[in-house]
């Protein structure tokens, strides 16, 4: 469908069609603010295969969105700076590409859905304009053709009466529809990787179910790699294949979905799972993680989780923090005591 651009992209130096669609290695991002340097991402690594869903889990402020923005290359800079690591798209390090080529990768190869669809859509342009823009700028289509494609896309994401709605403004859509427009926009150029940054956090459960179902359907259809960023343990359990759990800018556990839920190998993951209200524990106190996440400008030495951790020992307070222990061949945990944590189960 988009041969001309594919030709250009194939010209990316070192592009290897057999390499993973996305691989992040030891990514580091910091924000240089007046109050000091905030280390928002401190060595995040993960990868995702075609057709697979990789979930990135973690509470608010742990650096999930920043990671996504770094991958897309849309970090606010200043104050944000990528200080290390690699972001590989099919073997090509995006961080080393010139801006013009990098731009071509966006939307064409790696696309993104944002957390809050209302603020992520430009309020002063029609939905149709914002969709058609992609075809006009990336595919050089005429206005009419692009508009026709926009309608097709709206149809694809199941917006009723797409032909009429294409000329509406974002505020005239309901929350769920806006999120569907976002999805349409992300899928427009048929990317290989889709990063969905909390696509349903702002939505009701019934609408969330609609959106997740839609995403799953489209992913399957196109064999896309999906990076799903969320803090909702329920959603992750429903759709993810593999999970990376983040804490204070770091991936602290990585595993297949069943492993994590069955036997978390990091105390933080464990704490998260335990603080979900559960029926069998009704009437009892929830087991909450005590304390607060650290400020990113002032991450405690050693394991960032140590002040809140019930397994913490002196070793946890020593720099450098725990390495990623290989729990099983397909699973890692950044806890000195992963065995205890897991064995506790």
């Amino acid at each position, binding site marked *: 469908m988009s041969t001309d651009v594919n030709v250009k992209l194939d010209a990316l130096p070192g592009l290897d069609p057999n390499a993973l669609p996305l691989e992040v290695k030891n990514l580091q991002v910091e924000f240089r603010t007046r109050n000091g340097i905030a280390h928002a991402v401190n060595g995040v690594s993960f990868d995702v295969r075609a057709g697979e869903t990789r979930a990135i889990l973690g509470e608010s402020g742990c650096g999930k969105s920043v990671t996504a923005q770094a991958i897309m290359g849309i970090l606010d800079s200043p104050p944000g700076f990528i200080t290390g690591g690699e972001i590989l798209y099919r073997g090509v390090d995006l961080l080393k590409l010139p801006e013009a080529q990098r731009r071509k990768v966006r939307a064409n190869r790696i696309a993104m859905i944002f957390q809050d669809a209302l603020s992520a859509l430009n309020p002063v342009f029609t939905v149709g304009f914002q969709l058609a823009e992609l075809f006009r700028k990336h595919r050089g289509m005429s206005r009419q053709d692009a508009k026709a494609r926009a309608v097709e896309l709206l149809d694809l994401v199941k917006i009723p009466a797409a032909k009429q709605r294409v000329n509406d403004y974002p505020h005239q859509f309901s929350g769920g529809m806006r999120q569907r427009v976002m999805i349409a926009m992300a899928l427009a150029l048929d990317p290989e990787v889709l990063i969905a940054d909390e696509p349903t956090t702002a939505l009701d459960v019934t609408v969330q*179910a609609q959106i997740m179902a839609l995403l799953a359907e489209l992913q399957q259809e196109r064999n896309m790699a999906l990076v799903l960023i969320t803090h909702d*343990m329920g959603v992750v*359990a429903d759709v993810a294949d593999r999970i990376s759990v983040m804490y204070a800018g770091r991936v602290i556990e990585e595993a297949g979905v069943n492993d994590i839920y069955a036997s978390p190998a990091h105390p933080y993951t464990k704490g998260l799972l335990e603080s979900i209200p559960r*029926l069998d524990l*009704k009437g009892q106190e*929830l087991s*909450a993680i005590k304390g607060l996440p650290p400020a990113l400008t002032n991450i405690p030495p050693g394991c960032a989780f140590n002040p809140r951790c019930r397994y913490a020992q002196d070793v946890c307070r020593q720099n450098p923090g725990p390495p990623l222990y290989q729990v099983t061949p397909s699973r890692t945990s950044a806890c000195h005591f992963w065995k205890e944590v897991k064995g506790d189960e």
Partner: protein
Amino acid sequence: MSDYVLETRDLVKHFPLTQGIVFKKQIGAVRAVDGVNLQLRRGETLGVVGESGCGKSTLARMLVGLETPTSGDLFVQGRNMARVGAEERRRGRRNIQLVMQDPYTSLNPRMTVGDIIGEPFEVHPDVVPKGQRRGKVQELLELVGLNPDHINRYPHQFSGGQRQRIGIARALALNPEIILCDEPVSALDVSIQAQVINLLEKLQNELGLSYIFIAHDLSVVRHIADRVAVMYLGKIVEVGTEDEIYETPTHPYTQALLSAVPVPDPTLRGQRDQIVLTGDVPSPANPPSGCRFRTRCWKAQDICAEQEPLLEVRDKSGHPSACHFAEVRDVVHATE
């Protein structure tokens, strides 16, 4: 008089839609709350769930007296607050207090924690004599698990969960019997959310409070509530004990809602009977005739458009449901 600490009868709130240049005339109304009957017993927690925009907050605001009902009655400990004057209503607010959804916006950024929690005492000077107020505030701080030394701090120096505790302390200041929580944890992270829920439960045990707990997170409601009311477009469509609602929901909307809740257990993936609704919530200014859910309901028939189903017990499940075709459908498999 009933044994309910709080009871509403056909409580209605319509926000008028007006039109006109000089003389405005009403051309319609947003039926935010449209005939709600609720009962709250002493020491009980009533959960209210429903989609965004279904009127939960409006209901809450009416219950605490921030909004005057368009019609209907509202009894707080037997006194009909919908029929009293403004001054008495102001005073009557003592008995029923509100914890708001967003801990970031519900605290005045320019007041110290002490001033925020102490404000109720200044408004109702008879509750605590002037000299003892400060001590009382510190007591409250301690009660909600905050450091009493932080009395002079400002809200922005606290985290979300701590702020929510400040909100709770403010609500407790006047020794109310009822506390109304309007989505008190939805702005919080999972790990913090648990802390706040624990606190609320602890206070209920210690002080014998009655809660109305509004939320859209059904698992939280299930954890904390004794009874649950499900709202849809300004109406209660199903009400029952927590078990009745979760185990034997009879209203299609409740069923859809429950089935949509993601269960944090990957092993159940694909086994659940997930109902994905089509279409959006209709506008409360122009609700569908008859049953309001019929536009999204897979069971809808002609009668649903003609006749509004009453909230009554229809089948063996034994709890009221506002559906002509109410029947039990098991959508949630317990996690155990």
